[in-house]
């Protein structure tokens, strides 16, 4: 090193000679270095100008370097670094050093000394900053090495006094990332004084450069993130920064204040210029609220966002945020609390809603009214009417979070949320509707509020309307007029936008079941029954009439007196709807009527449900009786499958479980069809856990073994068998690697035995392998399939095209026609990449279309809606014909398994995520009548 230093000093005085020295150095080094670094070295030596050298370095940076050769490359770079007198080249070298030290598998401690050394002699501020960055990279790579961290922190502290903001920035960043977390680290042998990192960083809160101040705050936040408990004293420092001239400083300071308020919510801070004290979290809340009316919108967004997570704040502070007028002053809140209240009711300030109320009233004690300091006052009012919609959305989100934790606040903020339904930006409207839905458990809507909410039903945006339907599903309404109003508005909505039919029915279902007592008095009016006269029977297919019935039937479920009000045709309609729209119409216990599926009482909790017990029993029966003679097992399985399927049809909540089990049993029966079925099981259900995946894969493996045997029996030659055998063994190997953790659960199974015999299989001939497999398959026991907690079958319904039109869609052949497709998807995970639209033409040609990710909307958990356009085209036809449209679920078995780079015998590469292994149709196909006409010449 000393030699280097000497050389460096020498260079500084004799700049002319330098180039020649470089030339000489080449010859010595070339032979000993590995090829990569050598090539770089030669390149660098060839460089005649700094620009050239930069070019070489840039080229070099594009290629990755293996961990083994990193050190060599670093040495070469350092070598050149010492010689180089152009700062831009040195800068690039410094940045390369940082990049290289990040290389996986390379331990950068060996280059740290050099990096620190060159740092000490560097004059250019930019290069210094870059070098510190490199040190940061080295330090983060070695998080466990205390000594190195100490040393780096020491270096950073030394350079903190640099005149360039860039260097100070990097130093602070380094301190934030590497500063030791424990305050009392024992002094180490080199005698480095233990530094209090927080104190050092805190000193730079008052740096002259705003960028450095920001970096200091960020470093502090970084310390917090790494688990260091910040001192409470930082709070006062941070508060001062709130009035900084620069927005990035203020924005960071808001974050810091938030962090401290979460750390010490209950400590008491004094209010300046008075002798009173309040909780720190309240004080911080007030201060952050104040920032909601900051001059910079970046700060406003930050402040609004953070407010949402300050749940410990006292309720009276929280409620002030919704009232601009409430002037209760922090300073006097205990002594003059009543006075403040009086002030509020007396209305010192006018509201601007009534004419002539702005004449100044009686003079109030000026100490009692404080317009600015009582920061929390009206913070949300300001936030919600902010100029930038980013701020408004952040404010709505914050409201949502706070309202979820405080029911009384939820009640109060309702009016404001309702107001947001009229925002000019659709995104904000949507967000506020969603927010309202989230807090709706805590609130009951007043009639006037409901009125405003319902007015939005006329909105022309479908997303808004559907969000609103979702909201109404879980809203509490206080009066029967409210229910009536909601029904009327929903029906109005239905006539205006008939496509909302399903959504409205669903909405009314929940509205009915939530408010049975409120619906009861409305029934005669809604059904237009008359005490004396028989009224005309309404049209059964009228969506509006169905909507009314859905509301009533769902209310009747928990209100046994209601059916007495029904007229005869209502009962008939009930029977019809119960069959046709069973998901909307519940089973009712109707007097004097025997209903097919009314045996189940709705009050019984799902886990005590007899049908659930039945499911369990039938499954257990199958598992326990597995040693029956083959004929008996098969029969038992067939019966059980039938039972389960029927059960699934009857009990929608058990459909997933029953169907899943049935499918598994069917697999046992039909090992030939197992490939398709296993794929279905894996990809059609959401909520399948790893335990199940193992068993599914195990099943697949068995099927493959069976396939192998079948091929071996039928095929004549031995050659294809070799390949198949090898492939099969590879798959076994793969299975073992993927599910190594689950293997203990697979005791006595096929794969368990198979793995025992693996060494033998590897060396055996195909014929022998087949023989072994054959015996093993016979011996293997039946695996118990553990039921997952939550399982749902993926399904899809195409709403549009309805497939009823007799008018063919005409278009000129060779051109395209856009077909609107609208479908609801249930329980599809990641639909953006898995759901495809298939169009099959009469000539057997089939087309698979990938909808755009933006075409999927997510109206509620587990549900998606696909609204897209499909382009059809074909050559000319003589007459119209039907094409079939259906939805496919694309799957790729490897994508499900974690850590999958060597899947399927290593033939898959990085495209694993995108490739499609196969598809499962999961919707009914819809026929569309089309007619491509020949083009006119």
């Amino acid at each position, binding site marked *: 090193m000393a030699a280097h230093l000497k050389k460096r000093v020498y260079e500084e005085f004799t700049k002319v000679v330098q180039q020649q020295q470089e030339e000489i150095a080449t010859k010595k080094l070339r032979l000993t270095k590995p090829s990569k670094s050598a090539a770089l070295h030669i390149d660098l030596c060839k460089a005649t100008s700094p620009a050239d050298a930069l070019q070489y370095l840039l080229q070099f940076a594009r290629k990755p370097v293996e961990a083994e050769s990193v050190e060599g490359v670093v040495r070469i770079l350092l070598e050149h670094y010492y010689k180089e007198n152009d700062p831009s080249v040195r800068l690039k070298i410094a940045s390369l050093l940082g990049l290289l030290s990040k290389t996986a598998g390379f331990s950068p401690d060996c280059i740290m000394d050099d990096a620190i050394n060159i740092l000490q002699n560097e004059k250019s501020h930019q290069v210094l900053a870059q070098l510190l960055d490199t040190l940061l990279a080295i330090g983060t790579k070695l998080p466990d090495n205390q000594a190195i961290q100490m040393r780096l922190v020491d270096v950073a502290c030394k350079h903190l006094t640099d005149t360039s903001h860039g260097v100070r920035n990097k130093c602070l960043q380094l301190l934030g990332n590497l500063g030791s977390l424990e305050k009392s680290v024992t002094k180490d042998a080199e005698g480095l004084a233990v530094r209090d990192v927080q104190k050092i960083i805190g000193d730079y809160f008052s740096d002259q450069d705003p960028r450095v101040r920001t970096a200091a705050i960020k470093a502090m936040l970084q310390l917090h993130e790494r688990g260091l408990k910040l001192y409470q004293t930082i709070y006062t420092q941070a508060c001062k920064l709130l009035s900084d001239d620069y927005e990035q400083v203020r924005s960071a300071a808001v974050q810091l204040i938030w962090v401290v308020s979460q750390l010490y919510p209950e400590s008491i801070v004094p209010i300046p210029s008075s002798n009173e004290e309040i909780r720190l979290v309240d004080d911080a809340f007030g201060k952050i609220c104040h920032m909601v009316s900051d001059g910079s919108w970046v700060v406003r967004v930050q402040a609004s966002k953070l407010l949402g997570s300050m749940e410990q704040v006292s309720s009276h502070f929280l409620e002030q945020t919704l009232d601009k007028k409430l002037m209760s002053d922090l300073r006097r809140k205990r002594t003059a609390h009543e006075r403040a209240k009086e002030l509020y009711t007396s209305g010192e300030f*006018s509201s*601007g809603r009534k004419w002539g109320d*702005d004449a100044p009233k009686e003079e109030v004690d000026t100490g009692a009214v404080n317009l600015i300091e009582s920061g929390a006052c009206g913070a949300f009012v300001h936030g919600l009417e902010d*100029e930038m919609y980013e701020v408004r959305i952040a404010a709505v989100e914050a409201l949502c979070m706070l309202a979820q934790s405080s029911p009384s606040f939820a009640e109060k903020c309702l009016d404001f949320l309702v107001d*947001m339904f009229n925002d000019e930006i659709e995104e904000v409207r949507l967000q506020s509707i969603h927010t309202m839905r989230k807090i709706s458990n805590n609130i009951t809507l007043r009639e006037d509020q409901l009125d405003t909410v319902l007015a939005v039903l006329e909105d022309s945006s479908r997303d808004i309307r559907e969000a609103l339907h979702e909201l109404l599903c879980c809203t509490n309404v206080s009066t029967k007029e409210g229910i009536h109003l909601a029904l009327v508005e929903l029906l109005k909505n239905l006539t205006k936008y008939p496509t909302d039919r399903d959504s409205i029915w669903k909405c009314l279902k929940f509205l009915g079941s939530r408010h049975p007592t409120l619906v009861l008095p409305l029934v005669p009016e809604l059904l237009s029954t008359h005490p004396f006269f028989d009224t005309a029977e309404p049209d059964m297919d009228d969506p509006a009439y169905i909507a009314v019935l859905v509301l009533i039937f769902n209310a009747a479920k928990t209100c046994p007196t209601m059916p007495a009000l029904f007229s005869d045709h209502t009962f008939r309609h009930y029977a019809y709807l119960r069959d046709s729209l069973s998901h909307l119409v519940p089973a009712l216990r109707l007097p004097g009527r025997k209903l097919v599926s009314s045996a189940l009482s709705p009050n019984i909790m799902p886990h005590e449900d007899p049908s659930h017990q039945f499911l369990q029993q039938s499954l257990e029966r199958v598992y326990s009786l597995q040693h029956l003679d083959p004929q008996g097992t098969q029969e038992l399985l067939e019966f059980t499958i039938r039972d389960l399927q029927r059960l699934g049809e009857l009990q929608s909540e058990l459909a997933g479980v029953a169907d899943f089990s049935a499918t598994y049993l069917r697999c046992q029966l039909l090992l030939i069809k197992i490939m398709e079925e296993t794929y279905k099981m894996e990809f059609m259900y959401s909520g399948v856990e790893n335990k199940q995946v193992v068993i599914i894969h195990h099943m697949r493996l068995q099927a493959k073994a069976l396939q192998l045997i079948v091929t071996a029996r039928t095929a004549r030659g031995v050659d294809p068998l070799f390949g198949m055998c090898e492939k099969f063994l590879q798959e076994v190997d793969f299975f073992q690697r993927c599910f190594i953790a689950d293997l203990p659960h697979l005791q006595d199974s096929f794969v368990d035995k198979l793995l025992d015999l693996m060494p033998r299989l590897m060396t055996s001939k195909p014929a022998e392998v087949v023989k072994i497999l054959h015996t093993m398959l016979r011996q293997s026991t039946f695996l118990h399939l553990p039921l997952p907690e939550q399982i749902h079958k993926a399904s899809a319904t195409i709403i549009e095209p309805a497939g009823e039109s007799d008018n063919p869609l005409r278009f000129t052949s060779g051109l395209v026609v856009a077909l609107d497709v609208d479908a609801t998807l249930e329980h599809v995970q990641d639909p953006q990449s898995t759901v495809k639209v298939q169009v099959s033409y009469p000539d057997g040609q089939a087309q698979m279309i990938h909808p755009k990710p933006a075409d999927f909307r997510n109206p509620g958990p587990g549900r998606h809606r696909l609204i897209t356009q499909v382009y059809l085209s074909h050559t000319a036809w003589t007459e119209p014909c039907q094409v079939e449209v259906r939805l496919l679920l694309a799957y790729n078995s490897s994508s499900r398994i974690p850590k999958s780079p060597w899947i399927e015998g290593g033939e898959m590469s990085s495209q694993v995520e995108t490739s499609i292994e196969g598809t499962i149709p999961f919707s009914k196909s819809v026929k569309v009548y089309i007619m491509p006409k020949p083009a006119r010449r």
Partner: protein
Amino acid sequence: MPEIRVTPLGAGQDVGRSCILVSIAGKNVMLDCGMHMGFSDDVDDELEIKAYYAGHVLGAAMFQIKVGSESVVYTGDYNMTPDRHLGAAWIDKCRPNLLITESTYATTIRDSKRCRERDFLKKVHETVERGGKVLIPVFALGRAQELCILLETFWERMDLKAPIYFSTGLTEKANHYYKLFIPWTNQKIRKTFVQRNMFEFKHIKAFDRAFADSPGPMVVFATPGMLHAGQSLQIFRKWAGNEKNMVIMPGYCVQGTVGHKILSGQRKLEMEGRQVLEVKMQVEYMSFSAHADAKGIMQLVGQAEPENVLLVHGEAKKMEFLKQKIEQEFRVSCYMPANGETVTLPTSPSIPVGISLGLLKREMAQGLLPDAKKPRLLHGTLIMKDSNFRLVSSEQALKELGLAEHQLRFTCRVHLHDTRKEQETAVRVYSHLKSVLKDHCVQHLPDGSVTVESILIQAAAHSEDPGTKVLLVSWTYQDEELGSYLTSLLKKGLPQAS
């Protein structure tokens, strides 16, 4: 003494009129006085003018007038709450000497704008649904456009069919300008501008006199806003008799106008020609005024951080209230002169002094940590030349002025009672100083003298009294502090040798 003088000519404690005269650093500036077409004014070179967005109407601006380091901000009319077509007023921390702000709504803190909008829309919607007509008297600029946008989007969202009209003339022309100056409008209009210019109304058409008599519901925007003359008054007279109709006053009405009368609850109006008009239609007031409310004014003052605040454009009583609040809140002095009354503010303009980079860097290098609170002492020479101030190091100053450097040295004799030889005394002095002055460099030179930094101490025998030694202490002017400390230290005597 430099000062800023402000004399309101029309705007002092008065709402309707304007014009303010400001004298700043010898320049006279007339604010809010209208302009005379055809004249072009020359602006002084030293005068800097900066405009800030004010949000009141399209193109409204607040101005910062700056001469040297003295500055005044005049807000004109501004609005701190964004509305449907304009953003909110914004100012940076320009810390002017004086902020002259309007104070029309000095005692009002408005409710959330959204409540008002919702109320407004609800009232209009209800009236239209029951077949009534809605009259909204507006001024041509500002509120008219805001309400137009509000109703237009509402009509569009709710798919309503009733016609909306605005009176021709000024409003139409104003709309044209709104269409042109999209960058000055709010976020929503700017963002959607590419698809559609929001000021190209779909539902709003130009009004014709004949429409007033046509049956069925309608909404009409008509000028002027206080119902004192013109089209709005004509329509009002036609519709006043029907209780299904409604008039919505969206802003302030001056006393004496029809608007003010009906808002105060008068139901019978005397029109010209002794005619009495009975008002049966509903009268609603809705403050859509685009002026900042008390909280908005306070917010602006907080943002700009001025040294003084001056209130104009407001009623004296209300201003008094706000003045109190400002003084108490921000601890700045606040003025509210009447017309013709002059306010004089002494200013202490800062005088820029150039410092040589070398000197600055040298001084910076001495201090290790930044500490804003601690003033730092700096040695240098101030050169004043052609109204130009420079701070340079003394060496450079000497060089520039062609002067030779004089050394100023203080010497002092300290008598010590010591019977030993001079050398021994020197050694004792050396060890004493060494133990006391730990941070300084104390040296014992071979010739027997002791140095502390650059201070020289020599011991000599007293010519008369052999029991007394004389210590000669000598230091330069620069080391005065250390030197005097040393002498006082030595005067106390040496500790007894152990």
